[in-house]
């Protein structure tokens, strides 16, 4: 798999032939849909809550500058620091500086997609600071030296056997010689190894699902508890979050929490939802001595002004990819970017530039399922369609594709000609397909006929039949 969005088509082909990946995706697809539906059935107000959640984020985006200032004021008031970063490089540098200020050798990390976005781990390694991912999925892919393939299930592409082999490759060197086969034993081994890390780490780095303007709190939502131990035990807690994570009040956070877990894992509430506000207070029994929030822009402030703004409402539940037939066939690595699935196909071109990622908005059949399950009502197909036409207009799509599209568009805008051509085409196909009633091979449709037959047309076109039906007395 190539780690670049332009390689989507080649990556997807490779993914379809990967038996382990297809097995892993099959298990995921079956589970996600059922769990989400069940959780939503249990809450009659779900749709109304989604409408309110959408309105909350729309309101925040319309006043993001002021909300960020209010958030900053509250972080200061509770004894924390805020660091504003325009791009990934600034964010990496400030995090390095903070780690160096406490002579950090090892940092524990809670799951953060923004950390992936800025490429934090390789950068810290290069500066002799060892980052340890503590979310089990992130831990697995860190051992495998792979990026996450899903925003909430980073190791979703791995089978149990692959995890077993991976642990056996890495763990004997640190005192765990036996190969484990059972899931529970594998979880137990990772638990034992990481337990030591929480207590030894100098710095804990987490992401944030939400930033609360009212209180200056950062919020993480997890099921494992790793993020919590990451931010409780080390003496410095660094939060890395992108600027659109702001939510006005605790009351607004309640509304978003009600739709987040149900959309993501089908839980009514994730196991641990934790609000962190400033460093430990003077007499507190535990907690970090320093609290830093690193705010990342990385293209979002410009995105806010354009027609793709709605993607900034995204709360990273993953429902769009869990319900996407393309994602579930190709897997997350095929997208070659930090964010995958429908939300990634919109966000990536907007963050990295359409030229590098123009293949992604085409990675959709436009079935519309993503939009129908999105709790934040993001019109994902519309946004992808817009990116497709932008790419066409900017002449960065493949030449052959542009030629055929232009030809089709020219014909389609001339109804008389279009109908005449369809009539002729249908007639010819009907004539040729008389015997068998289907085609094993057709010119220009090799992709279709490679895996199935094309049925021969049986009569007149839909338009012709419609016109006939409409005639009075017919």
């Amino acid at each position: 798999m190539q780690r670049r969005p332009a390689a989507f088509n080649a990556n997807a082909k490779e993914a379809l032939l990967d038996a382990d990946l297809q097995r892993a995706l099959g298990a995921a697809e079956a589970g996600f849909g059922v769990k989400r539906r069940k959780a939503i059935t249990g809450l009659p107000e779900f749709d109304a809550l989604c409408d309110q959640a959408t309105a909350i984020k729309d309101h925040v985006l319309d006043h993001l500058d002021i909300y960020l200032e209010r958030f900053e004021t509250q972080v200061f008031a509770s004894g924390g620091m805020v660091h504003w970063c325009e791009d990934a490089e600034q964010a990496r540098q400030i995090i390095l500086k903070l780690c160096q200020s406490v002579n950090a050798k090892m940092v524990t990390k809670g799951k953060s997609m923004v950390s992936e976005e800025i490429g934090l781990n390789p950068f810290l390694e290069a500066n002799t600071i060892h980052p340890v991912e503590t979310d089990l999925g992130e831990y697995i892919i860190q051992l495998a030296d792979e990026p996450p393939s899903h925003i909430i299930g980073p190791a979703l592409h791995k089978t149990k056997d692959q995890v077993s082999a991976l642990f056996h490759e890495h763990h004997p060197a640190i005192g765990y010689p036996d190969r484990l086969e059972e899931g529970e034993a594998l979880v137990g081994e990772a638990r034992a190894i990481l337990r030591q890390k929480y207590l030894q780490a100098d710095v804990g780095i987490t992401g944030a699902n939400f930033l609360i303007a009212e209180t200056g709190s950062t919020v993480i939502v997890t099921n494992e508890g790793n993020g919590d131990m990451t931010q409780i035990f080390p003496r410095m807690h660094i939060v890395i979050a992108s600027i659109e994570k702001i939510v006005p009040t605790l009351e607004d956070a309640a509304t978003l929490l009600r739709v987040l877990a149900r959309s993501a894992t089908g839980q009514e509430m994730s196991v641990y939802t934790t609000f962190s506000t400033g460093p430990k207070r003077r007499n507190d029994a535990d907690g970090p001595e320093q609290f830093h929030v690193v705010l990342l822009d990385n293209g979002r402030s410009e995105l806010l002004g354009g027609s793709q703004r709605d993607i900034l409402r995204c709360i990273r539940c993953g429902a769009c990819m869990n319900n996407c037939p393309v994602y579930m066939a190709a897997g997350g690595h095929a997208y070659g970017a930090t964010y995958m699935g429908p939300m990634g196909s919109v966000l990536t071109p907007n963050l990295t530039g359409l030229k590098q990622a123009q293949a992604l908005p085409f990675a959709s059949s436009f079935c519309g399922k993503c939009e129908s399950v999105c709790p934040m009502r993001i019109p994902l197909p519309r946004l992808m369609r817009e990116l497709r036409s932008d790419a066409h207009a900017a002449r960065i799509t493949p030449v052959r594709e542009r030629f055929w599209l232009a030809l089709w568009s020219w014909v389609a805008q001339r109804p008389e000609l279009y109908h005449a051509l369809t009539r002729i085409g249908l007639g010819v196909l009907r004539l040729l397909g008389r015997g068998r009633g289907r085609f094993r091979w057709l010119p220009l449709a090799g992709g279709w006929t490679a895996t199935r037959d094309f049925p021969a047309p049986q009569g007149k076109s839909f338009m012709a039949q419609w016109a006939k039906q409409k005639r009075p007395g017919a």
Partner: protein
Amino acid sequence: MSQQRMAILSRLRTSLAARGVAQDVHGVDARLTARTSNLIPARGQLQGEALRTQFQQFVIKTQASIATVSSSSNVPEAIGEYLMTSALSGPVRLSGDGWLATMPWDRISSYTPCTGAISETDGVGVSVALCGIAETATLMLTSGATAPSGLNFLPPTHIIVLRGGDIVGALEDGWARLRLASNGQMPRTVNLITGPSRTADIAQTMYMGAHGPKRLHVIVVEGG
């Protein structure tokens, strides 16, 4: 302030102006002060017996367990009974909570109940919840001088003691309790805990006890 801060804010303002959104400092501040609740689902608005019943049922649904005692002096024995039935061992690390300190821990001395700094070898952690939220069987715990957050995560068994009168309906009722208890100042850590730790990161199969506690047991004390 920093150059980066100014650059980001200025880009945001340019973008918002391009969208034709008028700056509304007053509106934002009014909203932050008003803290108006949004829609609260019906399941978060129960009271009395129905509230209690739902809380109990939902606790079990989150794969935690729950017991009720009639007085705080019965808490240590209830914990002893739970540890015995589940074949678990101590030491039992108590948070420094003043209410816990009034309970007769000598009745379960075989489990070596103790206070003070958390140790990796602690078998059980006992903390007190600020409130229990019946909407999702979520327990709210706050950090403080007598309440280390680490105790909620490090020991493999977590026991949360809760006053019956502190069971509320919705998360919003929890926020009201929190603001009252903390005098409007957020504590460093507010944990909302809904069941024991779990993971589905290996082949989408659920395993309990990923990093946090493998077992969560809730003890409701009637009559305060």
